């Protein structure tokens, strides 16, 4: 008893404050532990079991991971995810940076324009995906129609395995652009005016000011935006689920299946909880690895003012 009392604090007041502190954090900490901490721990355990509708969990060691390594559908999903990432991240980062740079000037209707670019961010991915599915409708969709002018008729975007990732990438970019733009705008605000003035005095032109002032000063933001965009790309699910719902969910022959979709399908389409948990663990480890690798790279190329100040 005295040990507990001493652990809480030296004086009665300190002990009382400690008890208050514990009581205040308890609801959220217990809730987080029960609803998120336990599942995280269970995820590791489940990935080592074979567990489906037919039989209860049975320990199988690393068998699920061996199966994963030889599972063509898994590699296809991983490949699709990486392809989507390569389509979405560079384009998204470049476009949002471009819009932020243009909006960072004294243009008319600046606030209104910013609002418009941000609108898709507040809509649900589900609604966005539904609307874009209809836009990509081969004959009566808005885009299908526009393309007909160029002689491209009846392109079946969502059933053709070679094209299906394009509509998914387009929705993702459209919905994310405003979010990244706001981060870039915030980053641009932090660049001191004097740097531009000094560069101008040194005879730097517009392009040189952008290349040697804006870009390096903005690199922490570019880094942040890229990491968030990559992590976001690894989690693409809603778009796939919705946009391929009418044709063949997950794309014809799995051509639109992403890691997250394959994980969902394993657990809730084929009811293989153990196997799905192994996919989940891979997804988690990839995201973790991306974060760690980026954190290391950051030291090399990101310019932080404090390091030089």
């Amino acid at each position, binding site marked *: 008893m005295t040990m507990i009392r001493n652990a809480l604090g030296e004086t009665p007041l300190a002990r009382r404050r400690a008890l208050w502190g514990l009581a205040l954090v308890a609801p*959220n900490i217990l809730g*987080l532990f029960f609803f998120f901490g336990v599942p995280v721990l269970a995820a590791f355990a489940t990935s080592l079991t074979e567990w489906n509708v037919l039989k209860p969990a049975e320990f199988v060691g690393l068998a699920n991971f061996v199966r994963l390594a030889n599972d063509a559908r898994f590699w296809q999903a991983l490949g699709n995810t990486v392809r989507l990432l390569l389509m979405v991240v560079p384009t998204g980062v470049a476009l949002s940076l471009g819009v932020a740079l243009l909006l960072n000037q004294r243009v008319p209707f600046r606030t209104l324009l910013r609002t418009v670019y*941000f609108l898709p961010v507040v809509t649900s991915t589900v609604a966005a995906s539904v609307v874009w599915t209809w836009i990509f409708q081969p*004959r009566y969709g808005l885009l299908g129609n526009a393309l007909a002018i160029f002689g491209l008729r009846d392109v079946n975007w969502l059933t053709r395995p070679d094209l299906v990732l394009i509509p998914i990438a387009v929705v993702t970019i459209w919905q994310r652009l405003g979010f990244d733009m706001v981060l870039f705008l915030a980053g641009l605000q932090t660049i001191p005016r004097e740097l531009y003035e000094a560069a101008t005095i040194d005879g730097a032109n517009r392009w040189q000011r952008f290349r040697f002032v804006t870009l390096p000063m903005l690199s922490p933001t570019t880094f942040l935006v890229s990491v968030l965009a990559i992590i976001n790309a690894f989690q693409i699910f809603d778009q796939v689920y919705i946009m391929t719902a009418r044709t063949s969910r997950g794309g014809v022959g799995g051509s639109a299946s992403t890691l997250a979709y394959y994980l969902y399908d394993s657990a809730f389409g084929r009811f293989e909880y153990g196997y799905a948990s192994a996919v989940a663990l891979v997804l988690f480890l990839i995201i973790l690895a991306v974060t760690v690798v980026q954190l290391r790279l950051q030291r090399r190329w990101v310019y932080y003012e404090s390091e030089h100040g």
Partner: protein
Amino acid sequence: MVEQQGRAHDAGMTWARSIPYISGRVISFLILVAGAVIMVLPFVWMVSTACKPASELQRLPVRFVPETPSCLENLNTLYATSGGFNRYLLNSGLVTVGRTIGQLVTCSLAAYGFARFRFPGRNVLFALSLGLLMVPFQAIVVQEYLLLRQIGWLNTFAALIVPGMFSAFALFLLRQAFLQVPIELEEAAIIDGANPLQVLWKVTLPLSGPALAAFAVITVQAAWNDFLFPLVAANTPETRVVTIGIALLQGERSTPYNLIMMGSFLATLPMLALFVLLQRYFIEGVAMSGLKR
């Protein structure tokens, strides 16, 4: 005379120099407007389709303004065919309000505890909570489902609301905000005999207004637009939320697009309205969520 000439010369120079500047801005503006049109077009197309009669869906060339506007008819047909679209919207509302109020309570208490009190295990607990931020929800969706099944919560409102009442992100965000509150003000209240809950309620929370608003806006939006979690946790006519309702419409090949677009419009409208009203906090919320990692 000389002076005047000089001034005229200056003005001429400034004007000449500002030509590329102004034309640069004009070009920027035009590019921005063109981009904005592309950003808005899907919304226009959604509303336009939502108001077209089925007979006009498959007509070429595409028209934005329907020949026979039938917004109300489509609304009625949507309610008639999908059974409970109103119910889905209401459910989404309940879930959103429940989660937001829940997080507001649990996370502000915890954030205050972490910000102002010393207790054994404080740093470990806080670090573990932050660690949860690294775990994407998809990585634990299977276990979340199994847990809810185990405790008999599948297809209940408890499943939709209770797990969403706790958040590591909100804890982190609110703690940052509370640390900005001048501690002298809290001490003054303590000397006046206020207990920690009273201090939190009367001093700390009112002084953290903008952060609370930004937090609320992020939470509301995330809860309203949530899809994967309700998809696995609650998918019965009584407990379906609106995103699931839209997914169902989309999955039925026979549902015409005007009804689906009407459904999407109804699901999007509350968030658009909220955004227009509380724009500042949305933008701040994004800037804050950017700090999260």
